[in-house]
C-alpha cells in the first residue's frame, strides 16, 4: 500500500507519521508542498505541525497552497485523506470537512493522553478495529471543534462523527473533554467517509515504551482495510 505524507513549511509531525506508516507496512513517500502533483497513492496524510507558521489562522494558508488542489481532487475522487491535528485544521479550512477548530477553551496548549470512543465502523479507517476505546495523545492549542447546529445535526444523521473524547470506560462528559469541543468531537468524516480529520495523534502512541500503544490498532486496521 502506498501512502504520501505532505510536508508544508512548518509541518513537524511529518517524520513521526512516516515512521508510523512504514512500521505498519505502508510504502510511504514524503511530498514537498511545492510539488505540482502527488504520486499515485492509496492514502494521503496531512501531518501535524504549524503549516506556514499557522499565521492568519491555523491551516488557512496551507488550504490555499499549490499542492492542496491535488489533495482536493484526490479526495473528491474517493481517495483516502487523513488529517491529524494541523492536518485536521487544514481540512476544515479547505471545506473538505465542515466546521472549524477554535482555540482550546482554557486558552492553553495542551499535551496529554486522552481516551476516544470509536463512533462509527462503516468506514475504511475503523471497520473491524479490535478496540472500541483508544488511548491516544493530543498536543494542540486549537482543537476546540465547533460547527453550526445544522452541520452538527447533519454530522450525526450521517454518522460522520468518527471519534469522541471519553473516559477509559467510554463515558463521554465535559470532564473528559480536554478542549471544549462541541459534543466531545475529536474527529469527523466527510459524508463519503473517505476523509478523516482528527486532533489526536495515533502516530505518537505506537510502542509500549511510549505513553500508549493504541495507535497500533489504528494503523494495523487501516492497512488491513486498504489491502
Amino acid at each position: 500500500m502506498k501512502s504520501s505524507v505532505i510536508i508544508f513549511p512548518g509541518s513537524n509531525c511529518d517524520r513521526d507519521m512516516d515512521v508510523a506508516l512504514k512500521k505498519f507496512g505502508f510504502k510511504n513517500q514524503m511530498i514537498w508542498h511545492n510539488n505540482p502533483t502527488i504520486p499515485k497513492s492509496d492514502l494521503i496524510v496531512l501531518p501535524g505541525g504549524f503549516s506556514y507558521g499557522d499565521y492568519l489562522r491555523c491551516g488557512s494558508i496551507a488550504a490555499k497552497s499549490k499542492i492542496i488542489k491535488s489533495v482536493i481532487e484526490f479526495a473528491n475522487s474517493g481517495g483516502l485523506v487523513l488529517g491529524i491535528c494541523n492536518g485536521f485544521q487544514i481540512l476544515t479550512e479547505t471545506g473538505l470537512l465542515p466546521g472549524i477548530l477554535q482555540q482550546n477553551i482554557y486558552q492553553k496548549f495542551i499535551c496529554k493522553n486522552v481516551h476516544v470512543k470509536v463512533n462509527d465502523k462503516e468506514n475504511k479507517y475503523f471497520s473491524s478495529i479490535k478496540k472500541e476505546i483508544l488511548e491516544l495523545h493530543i498536543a494542540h492549542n486549537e482543537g476546540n471543534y465547533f460547527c453550526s447546529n445544522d452541520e452538527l445535526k447533519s454530522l450525526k444523521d450521517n454518522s460522520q462523527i468518527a471519534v469522541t473524547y471519553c473516559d477509559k470506560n467510554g463515558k463521554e462528559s465535559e470532564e473528559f473533554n480536554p478542549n471544549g469541543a462541541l459534543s466531545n468531537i475529536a474527529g469527523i468524516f466527510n459524508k463519503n467517509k473517505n476523509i478523516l480529520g482528527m486532533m489526536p495523534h495515533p502516530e505518537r502512541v505506537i510502542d509500549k515504551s511510549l505513553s500508549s500503544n493504541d495507535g497500533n490498532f489504528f494503523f494495523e486496521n487501516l492497512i488491513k482495510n486498504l489491502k
Partner: protein
Amino acid sequence: MEVNEQIAIDHGLKKEEFAKICDLLNRTPNLTELGIFSAMWNEHCSYKSSRLHLKKLNTKGKKVIQGPGENAGVIDIEDNDAIVFKIESHNHPSFIEPYQGAATGVGGIMRDVFTMGARPIANLNSIHFGSPQHPKTKNLLRGVVKGIGGYGNCMGIPTIGGQTSFDESYNGNILVNAMTLGLVNKNKIFYSKAAGVNKPVIYVGSKTGRDGIHGASMASAIFDDKIEEKKPTVQVGDPFTEKLLLEACLELMAGKSIISIQDMGAAGLTSSSIEMASKGNLGIELNLNKVPCREEKMTPYEIMLSESQERMLIVLENGKEEAAKKIFDKWNLDFAIIGKTTDSKKIELLFDNNKVAEIPINILAENAPIYDRKWKKTKLPQKIKFNKDDFKKLKITEVLKKILCLPNISSKEWIWQQYDHTVMGDTIQKPGSDSGVVRVHGTNKAVATSVDSSAVYCYAHPLTGGKQVVCESWRNLISCGSKPIAITNCLNFGNPEKEKNMGEFVECVEGINEASKFLDYPVVSGNVSFYNETKDKGIKPTPVIGGIGLIKNYQKMMTMGLKNNENLILVIGKTEGHIDKSVFAINILNEKKGPPPEINLFNEKNNGETVLKLIEEELIKSTHDVSLGGIITAISKMAIRGKKGFKLNKLRVLMNKFDYYFGEDQGRYIIEIEPKNLSKVQKILRDNSVHCDEIGIVTEKDIVLDKEPIIHIDDLIKSNTNWLEEYMSK
C-alpha cells in the same frame, strides 16, 4: 556624532574601559565602533568578571568531544553518535517581556545546538519566580510558560523536563534558563572557527530589524524603576522561521560546503563575525549595504547591534554559493553574500562605499578586560539546636500533606502540559520525573537529562551548595537508570561588583568543580548571568546544572512510580537527620537559618554507582532520589506517580522520627524491590559498603504510618496537584 566619555558610559562601558579603547586604537572610536566595543566588552559577551574562575572548571573527560568555548558542548554516546548540548539564560528580557523573552531564549539555545550540525531532540528549562504573593509573579509565570511552549512546540522539539521554583529573592529578577540537546554524527560536527582567506561570508535567515539593539548590554546591567523603558531591547521571536532555518541549515550541512557557521545570538552580527574571525586568526570584511534589512534607512550602527532572531552567519567554500542559495530559496529564507574573510586580522565594515569601522580583532576579543574582582568567603552557619519538644505537637501525615502542597514541592503539571513533550515520538519519560528521557531515534539507546538548582543551599553556604547541585543532577540521572556523562551550567548571580555576590559566585564554582571532578562529570558548556539585581536587591545564588546520562538499553530504564503491592521499600544511603535548611525547618518550623546538608562525595559516588548496578541486574522495580522534603516526601511522590499506597515499619533507628523522615541528608535514594530479591540486593549493597534501611512496603491505596490516621493516596494526589492549578486560576 563625536564620541566622548559620556557616550561611552551611556553604552555601559566604564571610564577606564573607554580610555583603554582609545589607547588600543590610538584614536577615539566612531559611534559604530563604540557600539561594537560595548557589545563585545559587556559582561554577557566578554565574561570579564567570571573568566578567571571559569578557567578552573573541570572540562575534560574521556567522553568529551568539545568542551566550553564553542556554541555548545559535545559528548560521545558511542556508535558514532554524539550529543550537543548547552543551557543559557534569558533572565533580563524575560522579566521585561515574559512571552518574547522566554520564547527567544528557547530559540537562541536551539540555534546554538543546530549551528553545530545537530538536530535538536529535547528541550528543558529552569524557571524561577518571585513569591507567589508578589503582584507580578502570576503574569510572569503565565507569559514565560506560554513563551517557552510557543517556541518549542512550533519547532516540533519536545520539552521533556524542567524545574520551577518560587522565592522572594526573584521578585525583581526572574530567571529563565533554557537548555537544548541535539543529536549529531560525531564525524559531522560543525564549528565556528573560520579558515582560509577570501572565502565568502554568507548571511542567512530572517531580515535584520531594529529589535534587540543593545540586548546584551541590557543583560549586563542591573534594573531600576525605568525597566519598562527597556522593552524595545527585547527581541521578538518567530519560531516558524527558525524551523525553516533549522531544516535549511541541516540540508546544507549534509553537503561539504561549510567551512564555519555561527548563529547570531547576543550582540548579533558583531559577535558572530568577530568570533569566527578571531578563532580562525583572520580578518573579516563586511559590506553592510548587502545585509537584508527589514526596515528602511538602518544605519551601520543599528545593523551591527541588532539582535533580530533567526539569523546565521556562514563561511562557505568558494564556488558553493549557488548550490547553497538554492537550498535557502527552497525554504524561502534570505541568503546574501555580505563579505569575505581577509588576512588583515581586522574587522572592516563598508557602507555606502565608505569604510565605517576598522578595528583589529585581537583588541576586541583577547584584549577585552578581565577583572579579578574582590570577593568574600561565606562562613558555614552554626547548626541550629531544635527543641524536639516542639515536634510533639505535630503529626507526620499532617506535615507531609502541608509539604506536598508547597509551591516548590507541588506538581508542575499545569506548566508542562502546555509543552509538547511527545513530538518526535521518542519520549519515554515525560516531565515530572527525575529525568526526562528520549530514545536515540532508531537505536536501543536513550539519553536521560535533568536540570537542577538549589538556591536555598547555595545561599546558606555557596561551596556546599555548588557541590550539592552537581550531586543532585547526578542522582536524578542515576534514578532513571542512566550513566551520568557530563554537564552544562547556567550560573545566575547578583552584582559581581559586590564582594558578597562575587564570593557566592567564586565559591559555587569551586563547589561545582570539586563535585564534577570527583564524580568524573565534566562541565562542557555553559553561560554566566550576572547583575540579577533590582534596586540593590540581588537574587539568591542560583547555579543551574543540566546533566546528560546514557542508557544503553532503554528497556532497562527506571521510573519512579511504585509498582506492586507487598514490594519492599528501601532507603539507600545513611540518614543522619539533617533538618537545618530543610523544607521542614523552613516551612513548618519557620527556622530559616543553619547550614545546608553536608556533601560526602565518596558516598555520593559509591551509592550512585551501586544503585546503577542494582538497576543493571534488574533487581529494582522503581527508584527515586531523596531531595527536598526528605524520605517521606520522596516515597510519597513515588506513590503519587504509581497511584499506590505504602506502609512504613516502626522506626528501628534511634532518632527522632521527624528528623528521620524529613531530614535532607544527601546521597540517598528510595528503591522498590520484590521480596524474593531482598538477599541478593542486600549482598550487593554489603559488598559495596552501602548503607540501607528497610522501611516499609507498597500497598494498594492506603498510606499507613504507625499510630497515625490512615490516609488514602487520592488525598496526597490532591494535596500535590491542586496548588498550582488553583493559584493560576484565581
